[in-house]
């Protein structure tokens, strides 16, 4: 394809967007609404995901070491846990250290126990994949010299379940919305093409290649997607920055945080733009296909 031809295609496609006035308006607004929904969903989903990750990363296994274990046995146990494939990290905490922690949290009264410490030495273990926590805990439980293995049984399974379901629901919704937008664009292009059937027929009869016929329509679809992504980008950017600025200070010190607005929102904007352009291109590509069989 020659550069000059491409220039012609660009001019043609822009002209056509203008010539189709109301149809262009209708499909651009349809794309606007869909991309706006997709954008809002994406922002919520990605933040939810961040919260989920934060919560997941906070999950750890507490291994209480048996009192009978001597130093050598403890060292063996630590090595065994470290060698497990699913283990990300492990931290040792002596019973004195544990008691100091309790004293700090609950007051000096507890320091009486320092004469005869009833606690046990503890290992804090994090699984590589937090969702595998229960499995790793079970494995540790089979080792010698463990007194008890704790990981919030029951509760974290429910948390993980909830997080997984909400992730999947979000993805399904986003895909459904994108398909709707694609359908809308493809319909608009179909009307444009039907109006220009004769032109396509003549083009084909005088020997235009399929790509020559196709490209102006594909570019037109691209413009529709591009135009449709402007308002969603503006709304999502402004709204999220506002929400972030309002909420972020209040969440300071919590275990979960919102995604920082600066790089994040630009990524979302770029994604919305890309989705707009891609569904535009794909939608028109699909609708030109059957008109080329002359």
């Amino acid at each position, binding site marked *: 394809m020659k550069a000059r031809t491409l220039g012609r295609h660009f001019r043609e496609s822009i002209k056509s967007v203008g010539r189709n006035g109301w149809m262009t308006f209708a499909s651009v607004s349809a794309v606007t609404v869909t991309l706006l929904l997709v954008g809002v969903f994406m922002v919520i989903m990605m933040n939810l995901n961040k919260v989920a990750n934060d919560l997941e990363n906070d999950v750890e296994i507490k291994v209480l070491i048996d009192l009978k274990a001597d130093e050598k046995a403890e060292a063996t146990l630590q090595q065994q846990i470290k060698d497990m494939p699913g283990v990300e990290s492990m931290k040792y905490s002596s019973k004195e250290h544990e008691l100091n922690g309790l004293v700090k949290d609950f007051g000096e009264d507890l320091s009486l126990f320092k004469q005869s410490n009833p606690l046990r030495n503890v290992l804090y273990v994090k699984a590589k994949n937090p969702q595998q926590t229960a499995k790793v805990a079970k494995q540790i439980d089979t080792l010698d010299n463990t007194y008890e293995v704790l990981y919030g049984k029951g509760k974290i399974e429910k948390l993980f379940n909830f997080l997984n379901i909400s992730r999947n629901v979000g993805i399904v919704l986003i895909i459904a919305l994108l398909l709707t937008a694609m359908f809308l664009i493809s319909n608009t292009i179909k009307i444009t093409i039907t109006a220009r059937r004769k032109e396509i027929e003549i083009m084909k*009869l005088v*020997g235009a290649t399929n790509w020559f016929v196709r490209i102006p329509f594909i570019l037109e679809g691209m413009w529709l997607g591009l135009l449709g992504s402007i308002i969603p980008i503006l709304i999502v950017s402004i709204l999220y920055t506002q929400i972030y600025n309002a909420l972020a200070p209040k969440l300071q010190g919590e275990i979960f945080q919102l995604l920082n607005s600066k790089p994040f929102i630009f990524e979302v904007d770029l994604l919305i733009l890309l989705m707009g352009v891609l569904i535009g291109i794909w939608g028109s590509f699909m609708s030109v296909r059957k008109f080329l069989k002359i």
Partner: protein
Amino acid sequence: MIEMKNVYKKYPNGVVAVNGINIKIKQGEFVYIVGPSGAGKSTFIKMMYREEKATSGEIIVNGMNLSKLKNKEVPHLRRQIGVVFQDFKLLPRLNVYENVAFALEVIEEDPSKIRKRVMDVLDLVGLKKKVRMFPDELSGGEQQRVSIARSIVNVPKVVIADEPTGNLDPETSWDIMNLFEEINARGTTIIMATHNREIVNNMRRRVIAIEGGLIVRDERGGDYGYEG
């Protein structure tokens, strides 16, 4: 230059439009295709530029075997064939000049050559003074001249015309026929399907008559041969 061997065409609805045709047309010939409506003339013509694909048999145009032609190569075939229709098929929003130039633009011809080529053919068809007019401002005969100009602007070896005078009054039809004669005199093969008895009988060219999807007559210097 055009050869058909045992060509057979059956449409998906079961209608057999062409039922075993053998023919040879040489470069520079002027051929009339005659026959009653529904005899298979249009299908016969459309197969030459691959608007319809033969169900079986062999079609060779300019050395290209159409039954083996890939879809990708069809544009290449069509650039060597000019097509003229009964209903002109002009684009209403383009003026005369643009309608003709369109045929060169879509095959990505060098723009510096387009202007001269278009003006030359518009001069040939006698419309040099109306280049800026739009199709709906022209008479039927003038519109057909634009369409003929478009079909030859690319200097094809063959021009195929399906009822080019079907929508025109007798006098205008003669003007158009003279134009085709002139194009033929320059060496271009002309293949024309027509119902115009008077023209066929006066021109005395090769006449191929098709009935029921078969060639029933093929004679040089022939006449129309049908009543009314």
